[in-house]
């Protein structure tokens, strides 16, 4: 046996916890895949239509919301595409952040018994969200074809926008989890806050509504507005976002991920001590 094969664990080895966590979650990538698989399988396992639900679910919601809100806001014929792309981006963030909290609470009983990098649970939640997001692009394209919004090549930019949304959601989810680990009611409070946040973000109405209503500052301070925008522009306007639209979104996503990751990994050891 060569000594290189034998893993050595030395608590005195000083690696920054944020880096160590990153290294370990890469090492546990198979686990991340298994948890994503489990989440997708168990959600639909005992239902007749199975995984089709992850497409039918957003499709149904899209149809209802399009029909309802098109009559209110929709003078523009591209309104359905505006609403749907915004909803997809928003729902991804909302679901990812809440499920990060839920998954980490599920994981905390496990973490009393075995070592697993805690962020693996958070990354799995994001992974599940991404699978669902990818699946809901199919109904999105369907709806766009039906209502006659042209599908342009610029739609290929959406994975980059999704990547920034992923970074933002992971960072925010980790940050919220730090509180949720200590106080279970944080996740309930977040649900309420999330709803308010959604209605303050131009998802179902246009940005003009806030800008003309004298509440332009609401647009400026809302980080999600920038991220939703760069996801929406390639779908609705059929163009790639310009630099001025892109950099604030990238900056917000990057900072959120860095802050969330650092705060979470700093606190992670404390979780185990405080039982």
């Amino acid at each position, binding site marked *: 046996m060569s000594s290189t094969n*034998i*893993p*050595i*664990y*030395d*608590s*005195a080895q000083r690696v920054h916890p944020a880096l160590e966590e990153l290294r370990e979650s890469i*090492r*546990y990538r*198979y*686990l991340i*895949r*298994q*948890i994503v*698989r*489990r989440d997708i*399988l*168990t959600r639909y*396992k*005992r239902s007749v239509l199975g995984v089709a639900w992850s497409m039918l679910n957003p499709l149904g919601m899209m149809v209802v919301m399009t029909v309802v809100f098109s009559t209110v806001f929709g003078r523009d014929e591209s309104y359905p595409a505006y609403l749907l792309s915004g909803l997809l981006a928003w729902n991804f963030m909302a679901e990812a952040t809440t499920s990060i909290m839920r998954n980490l609470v599920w994981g905390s009983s*496990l*973490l*009393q*018994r*075995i*070592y*697993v990098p805690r962020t693996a649970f958070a990354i799995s939640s994001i992974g599940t969200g991404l699978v669902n997001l990818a699946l809901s692009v199919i109904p999105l394209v369907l709806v766009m074809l039906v209502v006659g919004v042209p599908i342009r090549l610029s739609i290929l930019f959406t994975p980059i926008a999704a990547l920034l949304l992923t970074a933002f959601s992971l960072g925010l989810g980790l940050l919220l989890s730090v*509180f949720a680990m*200590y*106080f*279970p*009611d*944080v996740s309930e*409070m977040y649900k309420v806050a999330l709803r308010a946040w959604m209605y303050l973000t131009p998802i179902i109405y246009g940005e003009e509504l806030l800008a003309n209503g004298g509440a332009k500052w609401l647009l400026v301070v809302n980080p999600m507005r920038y991220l939703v925008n760069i996801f929406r522009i390639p779908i609705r306007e059929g163009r790639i976002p310009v630099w001025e639209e892109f950099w604030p979104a990238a900056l917000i996503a990057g900072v959120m991920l860095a802050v969330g990751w650092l705060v979470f990994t700093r606190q992670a*050891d*404390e979780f*185990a*001590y*405080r*039982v």
Partner: protein
Amino acid sequence: MSLPTVSDSLSLISPKRLDEAWGEEVIRFENLSVRFRVPAERMRTFKEFAIRRVQGKVSFREHWALRDVNLSIRAGEVFGLVGHNGAGKSTLLKVVARILKPTTGRVWVKGRVAPLLGVGAGFHPELTGRENVFLNGTLLGFSQQEMEEKFEQIVAFAGLEKFIDAPLRTYSSGMRARLGFAVATDTQPDILLVDEVLAVGDVAFREKSTARMNEFIERGTTILLVSHSMNTILSICHRVAWIHQGRVHMVGETEQVVAAYQANRDNAR
């Protein structure tokens, strides 16, 4: 009441004898301490916490689960840990398993650790036995490929070939325990952590698992065993440490430590 101190009992084993009997050092604790922070009053909600924070009433009681532990365990040893409930035995296993980080001091572990604390970790009732084996295995840190290679063997050992594609909710608790034990031990771990979990499953399986333990011992696997059963300790341990209120009270040859521990326990009654 005077009890033998650590330094007295350490001298019971001369370093030379240890070198002859056992291989190189695989686990070392250096001045290891672990501190828990227990909230003085339980605060369940964030609202409560915020109110108390404003009032300046948030306080924590510190509890040292382990204090200045110094131990060295060598390859091939079966090392027992005895002590009262809450003495810190399980905390010590958790430190080796990386579940807890030392608050101060150092722990050094060489080799692959199989924590029997994690038997059946993450089992999901809606998934099939097969899917659970993979989920549980990756939770224990194995790769997809490793699990594929070991899969047949795991199922055979658990004796669940016929049921492996049925959902776990249809399994009896004994079947679940068998599957969990099979995944956790179907490796060549260098170090095995056992926390009184051998009493799982039916008699036939218990014999099987005991046989596997013996197999491990013969193959030279280092075992760290926490038990309240002095019979188990006496029959398989080479050395024993007596943990008392987070400190190593005595360490040495099995018979001596167990005798001292039992005498103390009987006195206390």
